Structure formats: C-alpha cells, structure tokens
C-alpha cells in the first residue's frame, strides 16, 4: 500500500492529468450532451500523446548517449512490430488468394479495425476488456517465471461465481445499487485466485510442471462449470444459465454517452486499475522484485533469503485472480449467458497471445489487448466483403508464431538498428530513431 502511495506521489503530474481526464469522461457528457463526445475523445488522445511525448523528451534529456541497439525493450518492441506485420502480411496474402478483387478493401478494413467510428471504438474497448485482463493474468505469471496456460480454467471458475452471484444475490442491490456488481466481481476474483493457487501449490511443494497441471485444471474447470450450471442456475427453456439481475450487470458510468450506441461499460475502468496495480507491483515494489527474482532463478532467490515456494504460490494466486476477474467482466453483461456445453473458453488462450505481444509488461498488454480488440472489430466489418471473420484468428496465430521465433527476429532488428546507427554516425550527429515507440520503451523502465 505504501509503495503505491509513494508511486502516486512521485508521479503526481501523470496522476493529476489522468484524474482530470476521468472527470472529463464522467462529467462532461452529462453536462454537454452527446455532441461533445468527439471533442472529448480528441482531447484525451491529444493529452495522452502529449504526455508520452513529454516522457520521451525527459528520457532523452536524462540519457543523452542512448543507443537504440542497446535497449532490450526497444529491440523487443520492434520484434513485436515485425511479428504483427508478418501476421498481417500473411492475412493479406490469404485474402489475395481467396478473393483478389476485394483483398485491398478488406485489408484496409482490418487495419482500420475499431477506429471506424465512435461506436465501433466503444465496442472495441468493450471486447478488449476481458482480453486485456486475461493477458495481464498470463503476463504477470510469465514475469515471475511461470507459464499460466490455465487462465482459461480460472476464467471459467470466475465467470461461474460471478454469474451465480448475479443470479442469486439480487438482495444486495437494495443496500447499494453498485454492491451487487462489486460483490460479483470480488468473489469471482477470489475464486479465480483460489483456482490459480492449485497449480501454484503443486509447483511449489510437489515440483509439478505448472503448464501440465494447468492444462488438466482447464478441463476440470470446464466440467465443473457444466455440472454447477446444471445443478444451480439452469434455465432449461434455453439450455443455458439463468439471466443475471440487471443490478449485477457492469454499470456504464456515463461511458455510453461518450461512445453512443456501443456496448462499452465500466469494465475498461477496472482493467485500467488492474494494469496500474500490476505495473506498480512488478516494477516499483520489493514484493514484485522478489517475485521476479524467484522467476529468474529459484535457487539464487532462495540463497538471497527469499521464500521461493511462497512467492510461486502468491504469483499464481494473483494471476488466477486477474483471470477470474476477466471471467466476471466477460459474463456480467445482460444478454450474455454461460452455457453448460463442454468447451474450453478460448479467452484464456487469447490471453497468452496478448501477453506475448505486450512483452509481458502491463502497459504493453493494455496496448496489445486494444490492438486485438481493434482487429476483432475489423473482422466483424470484414463480413461486409466476402471474407469470414475467422481470418483474424489466423492472423493472430501467425503473429504469435512469428513472435515465438523471437530470437531470430531480434537478431534481425539488432542488425537493422546497428546499421542505421552506423549510417547516422557517419552522417554526423543526428536523431537515429526517436518517436512514440521509444516513449513506450522508456515508460516500461
């Protein structure tokens, strides 16, 4: 808690700007009406870009002899970008093969993605919330040396608990309108954390590989989910879970005024808070440092007096909790239902993809999640042309495969950077790289 306060104190400029922006989001649309929405969004974007530009400027001033090729973060980011380009190129070629006439229009639809209009922008944010959170879950575990392939199971358990509370605990809404929703997401988070603790405990005390354990637990969660739905909250008329009470659905906090006609809700606020908390834990606290140390070298961490076993379990609990929260936000929406069919929820695997693209850093995951959401919207609009939306999943899979070849890509990037620096050095002092990608890089440090 102290560390979080310290962090806020140190970064008071950033925080006061964000608070102002949030106030703008919540208050202005009600005061000014829907016409102001575009202006507000534009000003948020402008302030955001300005803030990162300022950060980049500060970084440049503090590190005058910064060399792009020596920054692993920058090299990693460029590797991700190349992976993304590879995936998009693959998609484009596939579209060319299937229907050459519309390939170019279709491809630009994908690129345009969620940025088509305000409504699709809101939908993009809405769809990306559970993805950002599962991405965060996988990323957090990954940073602490664990591969949480079980996000899917933790998400399923969280979703069930949230929907159960949403269906049965309607009385909470009489105490305070928000209490019902808050209780649902809180207990879902706890349930996800407990489910995540199982592979953590097995890893810490029985030396069981967490990948294998969590794959098994994914299937156990899937079947348990089916059994629980059928026995406790079953709606036989539609062969699905009962409708949640309106009070349990995620509130909109006026965001619907900012993004008229879209499905956006408060989920994005929750996601942003989690991004911030995990960012602080991982990068600014001793606790996070210990978790990462255990992940890098369990024996060395033990030698330095850290409790490796406890840290592994805690990492998995946090990771599972975030996945459980993702499940809650995914299903605490009116008109969305859990169904008792034995299929693995794919969001867990998407989380792996997003975590990889985001380089396992919370802020990177936020951007990667939004990118994925944008691609999904692109896939949705792609149906205007003669293509099926699954092409997006293919593109994502190729992106992940390309980023798995990271070593190769990074070598490639390094070579390019070094060459451009040599050229720059020969031409005299000048700006070799610089721009927004670098700002993101510096922000991660």
């Amino acid at each position: 808690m102290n560390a979080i306060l310290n962090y806020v104190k140190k970064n008071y400029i950033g925080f006061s700007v964000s608070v102002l922006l949030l106030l703008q989001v919540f208050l202005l649309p009600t005061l000014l009406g829907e016409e102001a929405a575009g202006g507000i969004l534009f000003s948020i974007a402008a302030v955001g870009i300005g803030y990162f530009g300022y950060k980049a400027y500060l970084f440049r001033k503090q590190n005058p002899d910064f060399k792009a090729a020596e920054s692993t973060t920058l090299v990693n980011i460029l590797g991700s970008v190349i992976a993304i380009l590879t995936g998009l190129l693959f998609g484009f070629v596939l579209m060319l093969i299937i229907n050459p006439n519309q390939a170019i229009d279709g491809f630009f639809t994908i690129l345009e993605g969620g940025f088509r209009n305000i409504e699709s922008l809101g939908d993009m944010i809405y769809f990306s919330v559970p993805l950002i959170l599962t991405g965060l879950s996988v990323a957090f575990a990954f940073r602490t040396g664990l591969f949480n392939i079980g996000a899917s199971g933790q998400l399923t358990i969280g979703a069930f608990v949230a929907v159960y509370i949403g269906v049965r605990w309607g009385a909470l809404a009489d105490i305070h309108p928000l209490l019902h929703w808050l209780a649902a997401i809180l207990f879902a988070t706890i349930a996800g954390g407990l489910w995540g603790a199982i592979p953590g405990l097995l890893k810490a005390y029985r030396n069981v590989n967490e990948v294998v354990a969590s794959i098994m637990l994914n299937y156990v969660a899937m079947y348990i989910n089916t059994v629980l739905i059928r026995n406790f909250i079953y709606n036989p008329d539609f062969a699905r879970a009962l409708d949640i009470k309106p009070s349990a659905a995620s509130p909109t906090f006026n965001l619907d005024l900012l993004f008229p006609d879209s499905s956006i809700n408060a989920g994005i606020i929750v996601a942003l808070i989690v991004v911030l908390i995990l960012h602080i834990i991982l990068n600014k606290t001793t606790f996070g440092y210990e978790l990462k140390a255990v992940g890098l070298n369990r024996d060395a961490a033990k030698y330095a007096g850290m409790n490796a076993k406890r840290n592994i379990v805690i990492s998995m609990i946090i990771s599972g909790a975030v996945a459980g929260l993702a499940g809650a936000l995914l299903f605490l929406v009116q008109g969305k239902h859990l169904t008792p069919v034995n299929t693995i929820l794919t969001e867990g695997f998407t989380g792996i993809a997003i975590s990889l693209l985001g380089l396992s850093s919370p802020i990177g995951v936020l951007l990667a999640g939004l990118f994925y959401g944008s691609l999904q919207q692109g896939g949705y609009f792609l149906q205007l042309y003669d293509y099926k939306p699954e092409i997006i999943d293919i593109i994502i899979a190729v992106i992940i495969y390309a980023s798995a070849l990271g070593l190769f890509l990074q070598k490639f990037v390094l070579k390019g950077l070094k060459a451009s620096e040599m050229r720059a050095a020969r031409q005299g002092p000048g700006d070799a790289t610089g721009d927004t990608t670098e700002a993101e890089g510096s922000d991660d440090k």
Partner: protein
Amino acid sequence: MTDLTFLEILYFIIPLMIASTIPLMLVATGALYSERSGVVNIALEGIMLMGAFVGAVVMKQLEPTELGTQMIALVGLTVGMITGIAFSFLHAFAAINMRANQIISATALNMFAPAFAIFMNRTFSEQGTQRVLLARNYRIASVEFLGDIPFIGDLFFQGAYLSTYIGIVLFVVAAVFLYKTKWGLRIRACGENPHAADSLGINIYKIRYAGVLVSGALAGMGGVIFVLSFATAFNASVAGFGFLALAVLIFGNWNPKRIILAASFFALMRIISNTTAVVPFLRDLNLDPELYQMLPYIATLVVLAFVSKNSAAPRAAGEPYDPGKR
C-alpha cells in the same frame, strides 16, 4: 427401456472403449516420441485437428467415387498423417532451429488450426458451414472369419474400424522401434542428455526433427481416427483429445505399456459418461456424466502430485539444444 444384461453391456461398451482407446494411445505415443527426443509438444490438439480437417475434406471428395469404403478410410488416414507431418514441421522448426519457447509455438499452432479449419470450410463449402459431413459408414460390420469366433469375435471383430487394427499395429511398431533399435536409443538419448549424445556424433537436430515429425504423423492420423470413429462429421474440434493424450502420456509415466493402460482407463471413463442413461448400475448412482469425464484429469493431477519425484519424464524435454551450453 428394458435393462441390458451384463453380457450385452460388455458387448456394447468394449467396442466403444476400444474405439476411444486407439486414438488416445496413438497420439500419446506421438507425444512420447517428441518428448523422448527432447521437444515438448502441446500442439497435439492443433495437429490432430488439422489432420482431421484435411483428412475429412479429402474423404468427402472421394465419397461419391467408386472407391471402396475402407479404401477411402485408408486414404483419409494417410492424408491425415501427411498433414500432421507438414503441420508439426512448423513446431519443429520453431523449437529446434529457432530455439523458441516450445509452449508458445505450440499454442500458436493450437490457435491456428481451428481458425484455419473454420475459415476454409466456411469459405469453400457450399452451405458456408464449418462442418464436413461424411455420408458413408466406416464401421466394419464383422471381420471375415474372425468375427464369427464366439465372445472374442463379438468384442473385437464386430463393429470395429479399419483404423483400430492399423492403430494397434502402428503402436506396436512405434514402441518396439523406440525401445529395441539403435535409432530408438538415439532418440531417447537426445531427450535425456543431448550434450552427451552430441559428443558421440549424433546429430541432435535431425533426431529431434524425427521425434517431432513422428508425433505429428501419429497425431494427424489420430485426428482422422477421431472423425471416423465417433463423429462421422468434422466440426472444427477434436474435443480435447490432444490434451487428453498428453494426460495419457503423463499418467502412463512415459512408458508404452502403461500408456495402453492409461488410454484404456481414460477411454472407459469417457464411455461411462456417455452411457450413464443406459447402464442400470450407473443410472442408479445418478451422477452427472461430467464427473466421470473429469476423473482422468484429476487422476493425472494426483499422479503428478505424488510421483513427480520419481517421474520418468525425459530430463531435457522442453529445453532448446544449445551446443555451447554444458
């Protein structure tokens, strides 16, 4: 419904169980090859799906022709095998040449396969659905001569599939090859101590490629067997069989004999969950069928928790080979 007698239940359950055991056993053997050579392959699910997809499409194209039903099945199995090899090549390349994280590259393949199958099917099939329906019945009513043997004939040679017998033969060949031949020994050496193997002049990269490609072949074939045996249609899923096969491998402690036992146990649980309504004993218990289906995974977890200390898992599995590292 009248209750079935014990013998009737046996005649009913055993062939179903065998049909489920075969793909599990084969795919688990594939995983065994891959892991013994030092590459963890959790892409089995995706490879099975890809094999099932291409196999089903090819079989559907052949169905209107004059070809015999079992001949089509044979072609389908071969096509599945080739597809599996081709698809697993991607995993081998990433894991062996690029020293990529094997879980990540496998996850990419697992994501790619269903997306690709659904996309291709919806794009090219006439109705725009993701299903590939097979019209013919690939079950062999009764094997000539052998099917007439009392009891044994009823259990093993009636209502079985061509893939059952091919699967058993392949399994035996694969197990003997891995444990009784020079090349099998080399494969196992690469998974235990690749540096020692390298020092004796074995090409680690080639052996590991072989391991992964064999696993791809068996998984691709397993996918077609899955479609032939219980689906009669490909619906962009192999129902988690790839991951279940991984559980079989672990439950079987990386040992072919115990893989048979594990696969039969898992298959039995699957069949029980599907027959709770028919078998009187199970109907009286009145448990949710999912509880039986859950059991293999829980059993695997328990086994992992209690025997991981003396597990026979290959020591170097999952680690990229780096000649410069000791």
